[in-house]
């Protein structure tokens, strides 16, 4: 079972995402990070994780996070989960092959169902 990373500087957002995932029957281990630097560090020892990534964070932006992974030639499955509605951000996300989806908050059941094919299935 692959571990799911929730990377968002707002703990409440991580809480919401976690609850939604749990309700949808996701039994994978879920790790919450409000500091993306810590998430990066822990990712090193992770085998094929699944990441929900915010863009606007104080320690490190989502883009910087993606660039760091790119420089390490490490490409886990990433879903950008952001409150930004900017078309520019949507376009920019397409430059990163690791990014499999771009979801505008709030995350919801409906948005989850579109994602489900990518997510680690419940056993």
């Amino acid at each position, binding site marked *: 079972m692959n571990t799911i990373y929730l990377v968002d500087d707002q703990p409440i957002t991580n809480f919401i995402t976690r609850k939604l995932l749990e*309700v949808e029957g996701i039994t994978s281990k879920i790790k919450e990070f409000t500091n993306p630097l810590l998430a990066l560090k822990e990712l090193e020892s992770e085998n094929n994780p699944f990441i929900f990534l915010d863009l606007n964070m104080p320690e490190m932006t989502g883009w910087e996070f993606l660039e760091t992974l790119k420089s390490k030639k490490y490409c886990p499955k990433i879903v950008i989960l952001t409150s930004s509605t*900017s078309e520019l951000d949507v376009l920019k996300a397409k430059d990163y092959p690791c990014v499999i989806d771009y979801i505008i908050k709030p995350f*919801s059941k409906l948005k989850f169902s579109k994602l489900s094919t990518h997510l680690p299935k419940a056993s």
Partner: protein
Amino acid sequence: MASITNNTSQLYRITYEAYSKFANNISRCTSLKEVGEISRTHLKYLLNFHIIRLSIQEADKYLFFSLSGNQVEYDLKEQTQLLAHEKDLLDTEIPVLTTNIPHDWIDGYELSSQLLEPSLWGWLFKKNDRKITVTLISDKNKPFNTGDVEILKLVVDCFEAKFHEIYLSRLLDVKNKSLTKALKTIKEKNDQIQKIVENQQEIIEDRTKEIVAKNKKLLNISALNAHNVREPLSRIQGLIQLFDIFDDEQIRNEVIPKLEKSAEEMDQVLQEVINMATNALSDLKAEKI
């Protein structure tokens, strides 16, 4: 051998030839100076005179032309320069023949002291609605006869036509000059206007650039604000979804406090956004000045 004065036909022929020469030469003249030169060399073969003077009205002035020996004078002057007998001629139009010579006038000529019983002849001719007075001073040595009046009339016709032509060409010249000057002024004004227009163009371009820059700034602010406001709002929306999943106790203990916190943060963000927009707007207004 018979005197030439007795051979009338020969006399006429000679006079005719002299007049043709005179008239041909005059017609080729382009200035009063040239007319004066031709008169000085040719007129003595046509008429006996010590002094001949013509005054011709041109618009509000008079053209005075006089010849005595080698002395040629011409000028365009005011009516006040008319001699007393010329004024009388203009009024009465009656020809004058008198021995009463206006000395203050003829004293200006070199030969006035050598005159022997001089007489003054005066006529008024009308040609093309213009009045021409002719004054002629003759004496015993250079007698003028009534019979010479016909040739005098021809000479005056010739002068009048040429004088008027010269006068008109001068007038044209003056008009051309003033037109050229006006044209130059117009060109200068056009250049000035062109410069003003170019200057305006530059100002407009600068202002447009300024406005585009300001719009971009405002757009950035509004995008940033939208994002900042949406963040706590999306949390609130997300939390509301959890109402369906959680039981009452969980809602009360876990969701409501998070809702309160998110709402509080949203309020904060909104206040910041409003302040930021207000400051940005007043900055932009300040830049305008």
